[in-house]
């Protein structure tokens, strides 16, 4: 029989040495050719999503998946699985009850997922167009070539597809506007400037399945009547730039792109534009300015890019994940796509689930699934079974959602109504040891650096908010600060020039809305309830809980903890720097926080 070894070569696994593992598989398989019954291929695939357990190695058709594979494990896998046909038990994933799991779909991380945008990733070699074709690739484009522009747009309208980049604008409507423009030159563009901290959905698609993005963009080009397109990819995504560039060349060589697309006589040409490294370039008009070679600053709209965009021509920009859904919509029909999801949000959504959850990684689920399901079932709950505090959704411009909203369905409209947003899919889970004021301060600092700085409310509003939030975190908060933050934030929602600015105050406004008491504790109580802000925190050992295990004393970097074995320890407040290392080290919950004395 023929067995295939799929070695994950996404950025996460590569960083953990997966390339060397793939190389060793190739070399050893060639060496051990003795067993004539098994023919083995090694395939380098894109990101499987479960990066924290990488490097991942999958064996097909047995459907065995190994986690945290080391170079030294390769020989055993070849002998036991490839030749012997049995799993190597110690490399299997253990589920929540500690049972080993062989198949990917039995893994609690993957089982509830439904993959559309990520459908091929982890199965195909991103650099082989043959792999993509075998998985039904370019069939959507083939079908689109037989349809009129209006028929393509109608199909996408039926699917209910909305932009996955964050705003959730109906894709068909954007296309319709561009299609109606009477212009000789039109452009389509792919927005691959993913910049939210902790988000890597688009990167994985660009790296692991570049042809699906090209196919989606080609379908968009046919729909709006464009012959040229660009893929704007942030330069930090080196592997994505490399794979997409190679895929364009490959697609042209096979006639899927170029002067005569699949023999239809139609012309579609794409090029890669490497982003200049600015978060704000994810905003459409700033992205276009950057493509034109100008400083990446947003422009007022109207005119909308679909009417007057790059170089003055009608331009439709779609997000990577949006594009990745299109080949499936055209191939299988819009109705089928619309059968998944909620009333207003159809299909699936990819999330980068990170933070204090047990299982972090890339997750694709149907729209409308609850946050609780996402965090507790797929994510496996909070690390160390600590209490959940908040989940930050939608990147820096999103918001923090508290525990009592965990049963909300995740879709475009529900989260927006709560002042947060689903955004592009970043989802950062926080436990009770996260300070919400510090979280707001972190995001405002990020945005103050990443704002383009063009309009007053965004640039100066963020600057002043950062000053106030830093003061609060460092114990210099004043009465009235909360109200001042609110009025700056509310002004920004109206007065800023672009969507980045209009949403930039969200981290502050949502944390005030849902965690106001924590702000008040900082300002009036001189206390950081989470024990994060060092100026407002001191730690003490609760003698009745302390077992005298000495772990805290060993963890303390400044020697502030003292005590004898098996006797309650003590922290010297004069030496303590409130770093929290003792609390992290304690297994008995004996380290408590309180406000800073003498303040």
């Amino acid at each position, binding site marked *: 029989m023929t067995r295939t070894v799929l070695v994950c070569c996404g950025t996460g696994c590569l960083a953990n040495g997966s390339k060397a593992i793939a190389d060793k598989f190739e070399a050893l398989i060639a060496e051990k050719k003795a067993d004539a019954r098994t023919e083995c291929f090694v395939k380098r695939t894109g990101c499987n999503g479960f990066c924290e357990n990488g490097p991942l190695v999958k064996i097909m058709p047995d459907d065995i998946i190994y986690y945290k594979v080391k170079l030294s494990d390769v020989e055993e896998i070849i002998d036991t699985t490839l030749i012997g046909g049995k799993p190597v038990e110690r490399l299997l994933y253990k589920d929540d009850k500690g049972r080993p799991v062989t198949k990917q779909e039995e893994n609690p991380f993957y089982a509830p997922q439904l993959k559309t945008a990520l459908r091929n990733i982890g199965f195909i070699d991103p650099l082989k167009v043959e792999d993509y074709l075998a998985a039904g690739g370019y069939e959507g484009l083939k079908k689109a070539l037989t349809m009129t522009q209006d028929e393509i747009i109608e199909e996408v309208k039926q699917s209910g597809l909305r932009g996955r980049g964050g705003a959730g604008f109906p894709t068909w409507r954007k296309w319709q506007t561009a299609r109606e423009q009477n212009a000789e030159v039109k452009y389509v563009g792919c927005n691959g400037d993913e910049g939210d901290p902790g988000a890597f959905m688009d990167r994985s698609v660009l790296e692991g399945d570049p042809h699906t993005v090209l196919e989606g963009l080609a379908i968009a080009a046919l729909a709006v009547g464009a012959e040229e397109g660009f893929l704007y990819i942030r330069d930090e995504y080196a592997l994505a730039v490399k794979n997409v560039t190679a895929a364009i060349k490959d697609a042209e060589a096979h006639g899927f792109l170029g002067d005569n697309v699949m023999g239809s006589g139609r012309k579609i040409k794409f090029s890669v534009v490497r982003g200049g490294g600015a978060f704000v370039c994810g905003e459409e008009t700033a992205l276009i300015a950057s493509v034109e070679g100008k400083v990446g600053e947003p422009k007022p709209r109207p005119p909308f890019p679909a009417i007057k965009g790059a170089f003055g021509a009608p331009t439709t920009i779609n997000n990577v994940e949006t594009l990745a859904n299109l080949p499936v919509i055209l191939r299988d029909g819009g109705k089928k796509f619309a059968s998944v999801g909620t009333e207003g949000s159809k299909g699936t959504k990819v999330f980068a689930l990170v933070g204090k959850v047990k299982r972090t990684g890339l997750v694709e689920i149907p729209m409308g699934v609850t946050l609780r399901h996402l965090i507790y079932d797929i994510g496996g709950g909070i690390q160390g079974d600590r209490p959940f505090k908040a989940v930050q959704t939608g990147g820096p411009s999103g918001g923090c959602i508290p525990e009592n909203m965990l049963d909300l369905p995740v879709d475009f409209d529900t989260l927006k109504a709560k002042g947060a947003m689903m955004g592009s899919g970043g989802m950062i889970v926080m436990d009770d040891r996260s300070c919400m004021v510090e979280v707001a301060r972190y995001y405002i600092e990020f945005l103050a650096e990443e704002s383009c700085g063009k309009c007053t*409310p965004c640039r100066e509003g963020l600057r*002043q908010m950062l000053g106030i939030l830093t003061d609060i975190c460092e114990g210099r908060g004043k009465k009235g600060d909360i109200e001042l933050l609110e009025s700056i934030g509310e002004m920004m929602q109206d007065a800023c020039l672009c969507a980045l600015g209009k949403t930039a105050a969200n981290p502050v406004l949502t944390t005030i809305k849902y965690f106001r008491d924590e702000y008040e504790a900082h300002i009036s109580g001189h206390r950081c309830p989470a024990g994060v802000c060092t100026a407002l925190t001191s730690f003490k050992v609760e003698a009745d809980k302390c077992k005298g295990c000495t772990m805290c004393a060993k963890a303390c970097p400044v020697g502030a903890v003292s005590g004898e074995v098996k006797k309650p320890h003590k922290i010297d407040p004069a030496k303590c720097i409130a770093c929290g290392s003792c609390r992290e080290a304690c297994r008995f919950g004996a380290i408590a926080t309180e406000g800073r004395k003498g303040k």
Partner: protein
Amino acid sequence: MIITIDGKACECEKGEFLLQVAKRNGIDIPTLCHHDGLPGQAACRVCLVEVKDGGRSQVTASCVFPVDHEIEVSTNSRKVKEERGMVLALLRMRAPGSEVIANMCEAYGAPKIGRLKPVVDGDKCILCGLCKRACASLGNGAIETLMRGTQKYVGTPYDQPSADCIGCGSCAEVCPTGAIEMKDEKGVRTIWGSEFRLVYCRECGKLIGTEEYMKAAGNTDDLCDDC
């Protein structure tokens, strides 16, 4: 088409910007980064107005808001006053050295918020970017807004004297707050770290410009427009 601004019926064309319509009708809306020759800057945001359209209402910058259909506009609603006041209060911290801003804050009742901190004492620049646009529109491009976010400032490449600068002074001319230093002394103009020899009209003695400006304009005769 007729729209209402502060209760006054104002005639306008479809596609005209609100600010334009208001100005023509003698309705006061403060502006800083708006310049008739370089429209659409939309950076300072002091020209905020409230637009009521059916049941919806939004506060928006009037300089780039095109009139599309009949709407009701308020330049002085409570919301406009509050939000414009906050924008001005922020600008006062951005440009604590600017008299223009101080006067505007006074005139439009911007709140004095002691908690806000001035960015750089004595600074007058509000970073509206009109100067760089004026420079670029003349084909020079000697200055640009550099860096981004709160680090943004206006300068020449690498903060070195720019070979593209012709010392025409257009940047200083369009600056709404007089933030660009330009000194004409003893027949020499100093601006952006460069020095330029000044040319005066040989008939009346009026200042025409710098030598580099004359060259760029293709002007070989040192006569002013009047002579």
